[in-house]
Every structure is written in C-alpha cells, then in structure tokens.
C-alpha cells in the first residue's frame, strides 16, 4: 500500500506493508535514525515522536496510521541552523549520558513546552513519566527542560553550577 505523510515539514510518499511500524518507517525507510527503538513493548519511550504535535510511541503506531498526519522527529527540532532551546538545555545541563533515551525525552519536552511554556518540576516529571532513562537518574533531564523553558523565555541565561561538579573541580 502507499502512504503519504509529512515528516519534519516535508511530504513523503512510500510504498509500505500494512504492518510496518512507524518507528521502522522512520529509521529504515526514511533513514531518520535519530528516533531510537528500545523495548518494543510500548514501555520505554525512546521511540517517541510528535504526531500532529502530540508525543506518541512510534513503536505502537502503524506507519499507515500516520498517513495524512504530521510527524516531527528529533531531526526536525533544530531550525535554520539553530538548536532548539530543548537541545541547548540538554547540552548545558548534561541532560544525557549515553544518549539513548534522549531523542524521545526531547520530543516530549518540546510538546510539553509548546502547551505549557513554564512547567513546574512536577509537571515535567509527569510528562516524561512514560519514558525510561537508565543513566541520568532524571534529575538533569528535568533540569534541562526547566532550562529550555526559562532560556526560551529569556529569563535565565546562565546556569547555577551543579553541586557535584563544583566539588569535583575543587580537588
């Protein structure tokens, strides 16, 4: 069958099997490997992309179901050579270690900030509660998203040093 959807602003049409999952369409058919694929059981959230602006687990959506819809992946976050505030937040606040969960975390963060530009820590933790990070303990992810919120609003441009780091650098 044929499917047509918009991916990161570009219309794409491909011949696919009905059973093809959106995550494999993005990674294997379109070569957009920024979207990761982890548990395969709808639990880890590393495959999260935006469908019409809302985060969805792309391992649990058929590519055919995305036909006629707008998909945005991590490759579509940066615009005009500028990183998205969410990406800058993750960079500045060390929001990743291995980076496996990061694309999904950043897409959920983008959708959250689009709806709620100034989320509380609790709201951030709730938004990413369907996504698993095995490295960071979440603290820096939450901090990164807070940074993106405040940075985008232009209210805070420098970061408080992270405690553990200042201890380390003192020795």
């Amino acid at each position: 069958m044929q499917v047509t959807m918009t991916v990161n602003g570009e219309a794409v049409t491909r011949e696919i099997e009905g059973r093809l999952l959106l995550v494999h369409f993005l990674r294997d058919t379109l070569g957009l490997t920024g979207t990761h694929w982890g548990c395969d059981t709808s639990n880890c959230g590393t495959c999260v992309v935006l469908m019409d602006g809302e985060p969805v687990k792309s391992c649990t959506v058929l590519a055919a179901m995305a036909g006629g819809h707008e998909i945005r992946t991590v490759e579509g976050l940066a615009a005009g050579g500028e990183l998205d505030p969410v990406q800058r937040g993750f960079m500045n606040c060390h929001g990743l270690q291995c980076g496996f969960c990061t694309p999904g975390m950043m897409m959920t963060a983008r959708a959250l900030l689009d709806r709620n530009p100034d989320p509380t820590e609790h709201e951030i933790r709730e938004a990413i509660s369907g996504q698993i990070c095995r490295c960071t303990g979440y603290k820096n992810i939450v901090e990164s998203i807070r940074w993106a919120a405040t940075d985008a609003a232009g209210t805070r441009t420098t970061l408080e040093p992270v405690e553990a780091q200042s201890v380390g650098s003192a020795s």
Partner: protein
Amino acid sequence: MQVPAPFEYERATSVDGAIGLLERLGDTAKLVAGGHSLLPMMKLRLANFEYLIDINDLHGELGYITFTADEVRIGAMTRHREIAESAELATVFPIFADAEQVIADPVVRNRGTIGGSLCQADPAEDLSAVCTTLGASCVIRGSGGERVVPMAEFHRGPYETAVGPTEMLTEVRFPIRPHAGSAYEKVERRAGDWAVAAAGAAVWLDSEPRGSRGGTDSEYDGQDVVLADARVGLAAVGPNTVEIPSISAALRGQTPSEELYARAGELAAQSCNPVTDPRGSADYKRHLADELTRRALRRAVQRATDQVRS
C-alpha cells in the same frame, strides 16, 4: 524485533463505513482505535488478523464528552487524554480524573481511547472499572441499528464483550444522580503499570440531611448523612471488572462510618476472585480489594458531602 504478522490495512471514514467493512471482511478483520492494546498483542503474535480497520478518522464523529441534566455521554473514540483534561467531567464524576492519572503514562494516554479500553475487556482495565462503578451503559451499533447494553452485560469474560463481529461500540452513557461523589484507588508496582488491584466507588447521598428532616438542625456536617445508593467496582481481581451488589445492599440507607467502610471492604475481599501472578499473590490482591474499597468509599463520601455543603 517484534512486528505483527502481515495484514491488509483499511481505513474507515465513518461509523457506517466501518460497519460496512466489518460486514464485507467478516471475522478476518478487526477494528483498531488507539492501537495501544491491540498492536502490542499483534506484535507478540497473540492476535492475528487478515485485515485491520483503522477507525482513528472517526475521532471527529466519536470523540466527544457531552452533558445533559441527567446524563453524560462519551464517544468511543474519546482519548484518555481528553477524558483526563475535561474539567467538567472531573466535577460531575471525579473518579475519571483519579483513574486517568494512573492509567498508563501521558504518551500512551495520547492514543488510547475509552472504546478500546472497554472493548479490550482486560480484567485490569481501569476505565472498565470506572464504567462499572458508575453503572454506565454501552451503545453498540450494527447495520441493523443501535442497542444499549448495561455494563453488567457488556463484558462476557476476559477479552470478550457483547459487541458482535460486525458491530462497534459508539458511545458510553453515564446516568447523573444528585448529591454524588466518586473516587478511584489503585495500587501499581511502578508508574504507568497496570493495577495490582484497584477499586472505584460511587455514592449518592439522600437529598435531605437527617438533621434538617427533624426540623431542628440543618447543618450538613457529614455525620448524619445517609447513603441513598452506593456502588463499588473492582479491577484486576477477577475475570472482568465487576460491581459488587452485596456492597450496594449493605450500604444503602446507612450513615457512612469507618465500620461501614470496613464491612464493605470485607465484602469486596470475599466476593473477588484474584489469581496469583507476577503482580502479586491472590492473598495480597484480596487484601488490596478490602483496603482500596475502604479508601475509595471514604473519599467518595467526603466528596459528596463537600459538594452538598457548598
């Protein structure tokens, strides 16, 4: 890598179109709504179909929450997220907001629908327990027209419903009665998981506080209220989510008290039928049925009295 076995994908653009496709393709076809129960099962090859009929385009037709004086109607394609975010629904039936906070996670809730939840008929499905608690009825449509089936007859066993192979669920209806309160209590192993056990409670207070009937004391202090009716629904402790008529019978006409909640909890533990599985032992689940019934009733009564007082 988990992928479903091959199938043909069809897309319905109207309820009649979906029913027409079901009639044409017979039981080789299955509807897919949010897909968050069906696709995982197909990926594990626990379910295989020759055709999947995508009904997401029916969200315009079947995605709604409407209110009249005596009824709430929710369209089958209404997503968890929309239910969670309806302030009006949370006012009329706070049990929905309680439950939606603990159903899966926010990303899953962007896709899953109330229709899919009820039709999946998983014994641990939280919205099924909510609908059971509230005494909902289900509107089922086929080419011959519509029929309305009460929740008590909707689930026919685990993963089985009253919806025929060429029918679909289109709407769920909830009767509104005065002086109501409701609540949902769930224990899960970790955020986003299915219930180890869960209990919903709905209560309706007598229209007049006892004191004012005597003509002396019109203060509605929560001590002398009387339960006109009460319902409890349990999830994950039997083949389907079930209501417990013996609890309703024990509570009707009584003044709420800790002793009464304890009696209801005891009845819940006696009437449920849990099995030991990786989520917990049958004994532990029975204990939860008792404790969560008490908590849900306590909170439902509190909400009903607060509402009557204000």
